[in-house]
């Protein structure tokens, strides 16, 4: 091939390559209208590294498709990632039925990024048994329903029953007020041997999270809606009371240990090592203490939030992408009522869990009331493998404590409140009034963006 021919061939190849690149990047492919079975994309498929759960998930999909031959499930890995959510939505990659945390629905509803499913709820009879306050999380200001909850948690007091007994405290009657927490912490600390009476977080947003929980428990609020604007509400007597209590326990009583700037796993580890008397947590901490850090269920109790005027709760659920056809919404609801929001499955799930050595009998998650709650209770009794009596103070009292959700833009607000918690726990001269005033100013700039 002479040089000229070679040059021409390269030129043709380049043009062809360029055209291909252009074609590859241009436009979106419109899916063909289908008249056959409805295919819905869902997320929550376990990763390949989690072989057991992936096998269970795939078996569920198979069973579902056998039962409902007109619905095909296209499952994707992963759950809610707020940082990639908008780009997935923009790129048309968001699943039809997608997982959310309780903190997401209101913003998605306000931005009209989700479908109204109210008209199709009668196809899912068990919805009437879901706790009303959890349904509210997925209900818009227009009264329409945009999603369904699948799991919930609310915070309480996790305590070490063995240490309680040693310190002469009654494990069946844990502290109900913050004053009692303070006294109990002193007795626990007096055991010596490095025992910390009460532990708390102040890092990686967990400090702000616990400040919120503690403020709710004494009847305070992080943010309130003033007209259609949100405003910080924690720079109050209640906010000061929460920080003062921590400051007194940390510096006056010295019952919180000298190691501070703790985050989620730290208190769990301390609890598992048997050196922590009390901390604020939820029932899902206990399997971590037992499985990961080799604690024993018998050692731990769970009670309601001290103060008892409110408990910070959260959880997760599923929503439907905006613009879905009625067939897809119905198919999505059928999938959820088969796989996730299904009181008739609890018995079989519990049996499977107990065989696999997973805990059965923890008080939460429990989204149910009425007949569905009864089904859950029966299934729990049959397969319980953890000492449910240890959670009796929580089960007895939690229903009467109002559930309060996280404030809007919770993680950003918590990041600011972390600083106040850090100061109080690391600086004996921390100026509580100034800390709260500074945090208030910063949180107000964040809340200005809340919808």
């Amino acid at each position, binding site marked *: 091939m002479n040089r000229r021919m070679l*040059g*021409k061939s*390269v*030129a*043709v190849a*380049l*043009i062809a*390559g*360029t055209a291909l*690149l*252009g074609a590859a*990047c241009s436009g979106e492919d419109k899916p063909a209208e289908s008249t056959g079975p409805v295919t819905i994309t869902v997320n929550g498929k376990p990763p390949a590294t989690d072989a057991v759960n992936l096998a269970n998930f795939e078996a569920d999909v198979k069973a579902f498709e056998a039962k409902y031959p007109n619905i095909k499930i296209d499952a994707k890995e992963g759950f809610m990632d*707020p*940082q990639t959510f*908008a780009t997935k*939505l*923009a790129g048309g990659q968001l699943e039809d039925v997608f997982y959310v945390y309780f903190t997401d629905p209101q*913003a998605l509803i306000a*931005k*009209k*990024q989700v479908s109204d499913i109210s008209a199709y709820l009668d196809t899912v009879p068990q919805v009437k048994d879901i706790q009303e306050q959890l349904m509210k999380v997925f209900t818009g200001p227009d009264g329409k329903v945009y999603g369904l909850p699948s799991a919930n948690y609310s915070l309480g007091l996790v305590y070490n029953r063995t240490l309680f007994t040693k310190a002469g405290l009654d494990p069946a009657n844990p502290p109900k007020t913050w004053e009692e927490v303070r006294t109990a912490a002193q007795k626990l600390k007096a055991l010596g041997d490095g025992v910390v009476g009460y532990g708390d977080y102040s*890092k990686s947003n967990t400090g702000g999270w616990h400040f919120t929980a503690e403020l709710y428990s004494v009847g305070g609020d992080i943010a309130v809606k003033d007209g259609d604007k949100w405003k910080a509400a924690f720079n109050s007597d209640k906010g000061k009371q929460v920080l003062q209590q921590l400051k007194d326990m940390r510096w006056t009583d010295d019952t919180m240990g000298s*190691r*501070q*700037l*703790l985050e989620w796993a730290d208190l769990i580890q301390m609890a598992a090592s048997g050196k922590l008397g009390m901390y604020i947590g939820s029932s899902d901490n206990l399997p971590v203490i037992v499985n990961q850090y080799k604690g024993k269920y018998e050692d731990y109790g769970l009670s309601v939030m001290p103060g008892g005027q409110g408990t910070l709760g959260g959880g997760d659920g599923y929503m439907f992408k*905006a*613009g879905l056809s009625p067939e897809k919404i119905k198919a999505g609801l059928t999938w959820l009522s088969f796989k996730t929001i299904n009181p008739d499955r609890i018995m079989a799930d519990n049996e499977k869990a107990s065989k696999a050595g997973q805990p059965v009998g923890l008080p939460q998650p429990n989204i149910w009331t009425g007949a569905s709650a009864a089904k859950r209770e029966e299934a729990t009794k049959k397969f319980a493998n953890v000492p449910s009596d240890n959670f009796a103070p929580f089960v007895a009292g939690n229903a009467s404590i109002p559930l309060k959700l996280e404030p809007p*833009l919770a*993680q*950003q607000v918590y*990041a*600011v409140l972390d*600083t106040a918690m*850090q100061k109080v726990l*690391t600086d004996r001269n921390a100026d509580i009034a100034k800390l709260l005033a500074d945090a208030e100013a*910063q949180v107000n*700039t*964040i809340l*200005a*963006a809340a919808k």
Partner: protein
Amino acid sequence: MTVGASERLRRRIGDNLQAYAFLAAGLVCFGLFSWYPLVKGIILSFQQDNFVTPPYWVGLDNYRALFADPLFGTAWLNTLEFTALALLFGYAVPFAVALVVNEFRHAKGFFRVAVYLPVMLPPIVSVLLWKYFYDPGSGLFNAVLSALHLPTSEWTQSPKMAMVSLVLVSTWANMGGATIMYLAGLAGIPSELYEAAELDGASVWQRVRHVTIPQLRFIMLVLLLLQIVATMQVFIEPFQLTGTTNPDTITVMVLIYRYAFTVNNDFGLAAAMSVLLFIVLGAFSAVYLRLTRKAD
């Protein structure tokens, strides 16, 4: 006449077909991956878009909202503070290091690699490493300070130290490139100049002041402008070490991220802020281009 002109045009295209073909690939790549997003970003700054319903025009509303946001000024001031501090450390340190390394008789290659090594780490790795160094609870720096019975610092958590802490990370991670460029420049300075200066009895400082700096003036100027453009886009250090809510360290890029992804979820607002940053950086780049063209 028209026939002649069109014939000429045809021939000109025909003769240069290969050149156009080679150009096409580059043009399409630039068009798709640089210019199209750029234009799209500018359009987005005048729109509201939730990526579900069609976007609608809002005129200058996004820009008005920007100017009304108290963080807007804070972010620019913080960025300027970072740029100034980064110049103070990041501009002087590589120059000094290059001078010192250049003087070594032995193991020059080793020191060159050692200085350049941090540049080879993925940025997120170096930042996470420093996150551990700075941790006020169990971090390396405070552990060393308390072992020496010196007062510890809150590093990134303290309003006074936060920005300096970020600049240290950035300098450590990025100085390698500038140092290598200075070393190359130093190698190009004729040794006769130093010999003559020594014969005239010039001290070390005088040799640096009257020989090295004037000889390296052009490289120093180019690096200065490049560094301003780079440091004004600082993101990964404040984003990872102090987050998007800390008003002491929120920079322009972090604010753009905050507008788009964490607090506001408002892409129009983020695009408007990006357009402003683009204009500012465009001005610096224009100066840079002018200077380099002059030098050619």
